[in-house]
């Protein structure tokens, strides 16, 4: 079954006169366990699409079925709960809370889920270990490198075991080496844990390493290519 199903989704910004039609009828289905890269030029509507997928924004017209549920029928609190439990976000700008340490940032989704403190700690520790940051628990974002911050963000996005990991240019603020490291992480998560991932990138090389690449042009899907065969990419199989 499709975890994500978009039917003729349009998004129009602004009021009459100065309307911007950012999405112009997107049909897209994503199955569980897929790794989808979304690419396209600047201003093509990638972030708009991601925000809708992440239940941060709603389509102007069309339907978005998440796990079979039309998100239009949900109120703000229910949407928050979905973001908390079904979705995990990784942003280009990391979006960590500056006043909180790495482990506190990772714990945050569990706090909003009402998980007791000791369980939170243990789980957050485990997540930080997975992303290889066990030594940086009490560091604050300004004491970490960009790559480390993004790993914290990934740990935070994954802590509630979301059905979908959404990443909007997760490597955009990182140098290419660090970016590759993060991407390797994504591939590993997808391969080893079957994590569904939707990732925006405008880097052609990065995009083409993904099993499925959706290209957006001017608010429309221009192409949707599933790379054939098993992914024996150098990146994906590389050392951790």
């Amino acid at each position, binding site marked *: 079954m499709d975890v994500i199903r978009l039917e003729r989704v349009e998004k129009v910004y602004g009021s009459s006169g100065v309307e911007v039609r950012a999405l112009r009828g997107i049909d897209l289905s994503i199955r569980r366990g897929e790794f989808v890269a979304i690419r396209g030029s600047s201003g093509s509507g990638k972030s708009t699409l991601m*925000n809708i997928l*992440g239940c*941060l*924004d709603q389509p102007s017209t069309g339907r978005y079925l998440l796990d079979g549920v039309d998100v239009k029928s949900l109120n*703000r*609190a229910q949407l*928050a*709960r979905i*973001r*908390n*439990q079904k979705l995990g*976000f990784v*942003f280009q700008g990391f*979006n*960590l*809370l500056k*006043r909180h340490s790495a482990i506190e940032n990772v714990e*945050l*989704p569990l*706090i*909003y*889920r*009402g998980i*007791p*403190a000791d369980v939170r700690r243990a789980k957050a520790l485990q997540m930080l270990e997975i992303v290889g940051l066990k030594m940086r628990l009490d560091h604050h974002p300004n004491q970490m490198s960009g790559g480390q911050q993004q790993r914290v963000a990934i740990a*935070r*996005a994954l802590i*509630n075991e979301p059905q979908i990991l959404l990443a909007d240019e997760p490597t955009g603020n990182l140098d290419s080496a660090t970016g590759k490291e993060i991407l390797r992480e994504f591939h590993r998560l997808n391969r080893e844990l079957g994590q569904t991932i939707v990732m925006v990138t405008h880097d052609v090389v990065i995009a083409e390493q993904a099993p499925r690449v959706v290209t957006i042009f001017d608010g429309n899907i221009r192409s949707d290519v599933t790379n054939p065969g098993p992914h024996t990419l150098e990146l994906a199989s590389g050392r951790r």
Partner: protein
Amino acid sequence: MGWLAAFRLAFGAIMVHKGRSVLTSLGIVIGTASVIAMVSAANGARKKLDERLDNVGRNLILIRAGTRNANGTLADFKPLTNDDAGTLRRQVKSGVNSFAEVQASMRVVSTRTRHTPTMITGTVPDFAKVRMWPLEHGRFLTDEDLKKQATVVVLGATIRDKLFPDLANPVGQSIRIDSMNLRVVGVTTPKGRSPIGGDQDDQVFIPVSTLQRKLAGGVENLSLILTSVTDLTQMDAIKKDVSRVLREKRRCKTQDDFDVSSVQEMTELAVIMTRTMQVLIAVIASISLLVGGIGIMNIMLVSVTERTREIGIRMAIGATPRDVLVQFLIEALMLALVGGLIGVSIGLGGAVLMAFAAKWPVSVDGTMVSLSFAVSAGVGVFFGYYPALKASRLDPIDALRYE
């Protein structure tokens, strides 16, 4: 989100801007501090007054000579006489503990080695009954003393201490007033200060006949006629009775040339003054709390704006509108409670200092302290609600994009 987590979060946010938080809560600090200090002061003053009222006797009625002016003072004296007192004694019988003439005069009293100026109170045996004033040693004046214009004296406790510092019971000793020698026959128990502040034990009692004949040169001019009611609820009725009898006796036509007042009503003025003070305090407190509340609202609005991005992040990872609302409400609540805590401490300190300075009992009301906290909390929640609501209504996308 759990409450513990929410409170910890709010505490952390407040600690980021310690100075700002304290300044913000200043209005609340002033409000609660002034309420605690002033209400404690008013209570202390009230207690002290009550105590003194009890010292004098709530049931006491004072009859003085003079016509009451338009401005409330007494003037135009036609002296009260022994005969006036006698008439009252004969005609007003029920509901009172008799009547007592009082003619007072300031003189120097001395033993062989000591001298002290004091009030010489010429009075009658019933005085002890009217004032319900027991003796510590010896006896009070008797009818016999009165009849014979006996040169006997009953000492107030303060005078006893001044004249006979080494002698608890000076009964049998003699003292001198002017050139007259008197024999000490009794000492009254200490009664403490009157509402006006005078030491009631700084006086000596002699028969009124002795005072009038032998000290005042035959002048019969009573300072007071005293009586006390047996039942406080009968106060007004007795006062009316007394006035009626005296009016008749002294043949007053248009206006009374005497004044009948109770100790209770004389202290009413003071009570009214404490009331006024309390109203004033309430006003000051309300204004500071209002100002404090607006301060909290202001800083919370600033805080919400400053932290728009943080709110966006929190919403993106699953904070519900209610979570955000509660987070900011708790912050406002804690700001107010910090103010309340500082205010209560300052107020209590002030109350204790004032009590020491004014020598009245420290009177701290536990319910008032808890009420102060409750009101502070209420102010925090009330004025914090709008900013918190604003925060909770932010759109996650707009908040995330906010710079």
